[in-house]
């Protein structure tokens, strides 16, 4: 199924040439050379974070990893559009968005390493913990947005989900609720073309952004491998949400270049040639081409980008390896917010049971 339409917003062609746009160009007019360089650095760094995740999994340090290879521009473009007060409701693949929120590198890994069920403290970085139940976070973003509106806060909530998630009732209900209450929520769908082995055509017969019309909100399709275009449309959607103009649905058309997770085998279902086709639309190379075209990519700069990626990767790796295995009895922590006799009893029984092994051999 063709998923791109002539409505698709693109500000940068795959070969790195700027494309004019009557509306969205103006929304990134503030980007000077330093800002453009910053975006490219972000793209390179998150690709490196992702590669480190895959490597750590292969080395047995992580139980699982969900690579974001290919989706860097969708995540950096939208992530850099966010203000500190905005709140993110991600799925499990938003490592790039987490980086934009300033997450402590090692915190990304607890969940994948199996030392804890979540990563960061949501209130530290205004980003919820990853949702593995597909689509659940769409409703959470809607509810948070309603809270923002009631409080008169000038902020928005954004939900990230995949093309597969659009089939879930929760996403349909989220769009409905958000429209009904004009919640300041932005729905950011990364259409990476695959839900594990299922192509996007199995989930949607019309381009995903067009679904918005049925709920009474604007839908917008953007080239998800074009970091400038993603930044522009996300800024637009967030701004109108913050101003009280209601929710919007963004479909970022991108491609998952790696497997679904490190446990997946895409050779079973991916048609030959598809990956190569998308390689030509790589989000990093087109941004690099732009920098070169505009004389912004000298060797010193490129060296500094590499150095930054190396440093982040090293910090990440060290942080991951330093995550300690949790002590057994910590599994009884936080089941409830207030004391709970049953949990207390089971904890005491298990503690006594463990004590029984002490000195037994």
């Amino acid at each position, binding site marked *: 199924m063709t998923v791109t339409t002539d409505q698709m917003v693109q500000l940068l062609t795959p070969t790195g040439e700027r494309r004019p746009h009557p509306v969205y160009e103006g929304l990134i007019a503030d980007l000077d050379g330093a800002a453009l360089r910053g975006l490219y650095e972000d793209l390179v760094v998150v690709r490196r974070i992702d590669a480190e995740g895959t490597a750590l999994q292969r080395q047995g340090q992580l*139980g*699982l990893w969900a690579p974001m290879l290919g989706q860097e521009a969708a995540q950096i473009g939208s992530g850099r559009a966010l203000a500190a007060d905005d709140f993110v409701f991600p799925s*499990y693949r938003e490592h790039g968005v987490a980086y934009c929120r300033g997450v402590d590198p090692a915190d990304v890994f*607890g*969940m*994948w*390493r*199996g*030392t*804890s*069920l979540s990563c960061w403290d949501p209130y530290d970085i205004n980003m919820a913990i990853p949702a*593995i*139940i*597909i689509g659940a976070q769409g409703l959470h973003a809607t509810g948070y947005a309603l809270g923002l509106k009631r409080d008169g806060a000038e902020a928005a909530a954004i939900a990230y989900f995949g093309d*597969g*998630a659009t*089939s*879930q*009732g*929760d996403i349909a209900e989220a769009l409905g609720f958000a429209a009904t209450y004009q919640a300041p929520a932005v729905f950011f769908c990364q259409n990476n073309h695959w*839900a*594990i*082995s*299922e192509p996007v055509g*199995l*989930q949607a017969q019309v381009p995903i952004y067009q679904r918005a019309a049925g709920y009474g909100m604007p839908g917008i399709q953007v080239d998800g491998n074009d970091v400038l275009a993603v930044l522009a449309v996300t800024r637009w959607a967030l701004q109108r949400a913050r101003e009280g103009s209601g929710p919007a649905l963004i479909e970022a058309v991108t491609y998952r270049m790696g497997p679904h997770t490190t*446990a*997946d*085998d895409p050779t*079973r*279902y991916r048609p030959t040639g598809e990956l190569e086709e998308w390689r030509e639309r790589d989000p990093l190379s087109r941004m690099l081409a732009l920098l070169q075209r505009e004389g912004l990519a000298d060797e010193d700069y490129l060296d500094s980008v590499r150095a930054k990626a190396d440093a982040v990767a090293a910090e990440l790796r060290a942080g991951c390896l330093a995550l300690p*295995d*949790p002590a*057994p009895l*910590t*599994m*009884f922590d936080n*089941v409830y917010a207030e004391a*709970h006799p*049953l*949990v207390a009893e*089971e904890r005491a029984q*298990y503690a006594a*049971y463990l004590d*029984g092994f002490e000195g037994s051999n």
Partner: protein
Amino acid sequence: MATTRMSMAKALNAGLRKAMEDDPKVVLMGEDIGKLGGVFRITDGLQKDFGEDRVMDTPLAESGIIGTAVGLAFRGYRPVCEIQFDGFIYPAFDQIVSQVAKLHYRSRGNVKMPLTIRVPFGGGIGAVEHHSESPEAYFAHTAGLRVVSCADADDAYGMLQQAIASDDPVLFFEPKRLYQHKGEVDLDRALTAREPLHQARIARSGTDLTVAAYGPVVGTALAAAEAAAEEGVSIEVVDLRTLSPLDFDTLEQSVLRTGRLVVTHEAAVFMGMGAEIAARITERCFYHLEAPVLRVGGFHLPYPASKLEEHHLPDLDRLLHATDRVLAY
């Protein structure tokens, strides 16, 4: 009797294939079950051989999968639905407990719901959250559903076909950590020659106490019996196989022989299958029990992070600790 050695995953695949050959009304539905063959490869090769109409890759929507299967069942089909992992059955919960379970009753027996809902369940595989749960008690609690769980390859092969042939809806819980365990499978034995789907089986005979288990922990119970035998203790292991209905007759007979019972499962002990079993066996065997019925299972917490799961799951040591306590009365 010629048997073939194969993994439980392969046996389930063979069972599905046989059921589809035997009955053209059998259709499979689920996420990623086509080209990929399911994330556990249980449906491997079936779409290639039976076509996309009979092995349907569905949109990513659990309520959609089960609700659509209800409509197909109305039309005389026998849908076999795959829920990808235990923790993803909840979006379909409403369709299962409100529709699937009740349509036969509400329609005064006029509408049959011969659905089979396959659920890879349980932990012990080091997965991330929502991938290791044991939700069977929710479904056993609902009248109108049958709930079963296999513990070895041969039973997997036979029980799955029996479930599909049943005119009632069956929740078929597959112990995912046993998928790669191999066993001898009799591919030719007629379904009628097998233990019926509502019957437990004595997996190992013994005289001192009974351990009742199902699915993933039957192996743990057998290992405990093996270890106890070395200490001169004779444990009988009952593989329950079926949780609704539960075969209390077989269990009662066993407890009448041994006088003691320990029930084990991965699911949380509180309000779980073990509580029901303890209550009913106490009622039936009150004058024969030498000790209270003990339960060994999960704690009252969300399934913990994988580095802690060995503590949450009942293992050999915890099971032996319980059998020691029961024997000490």
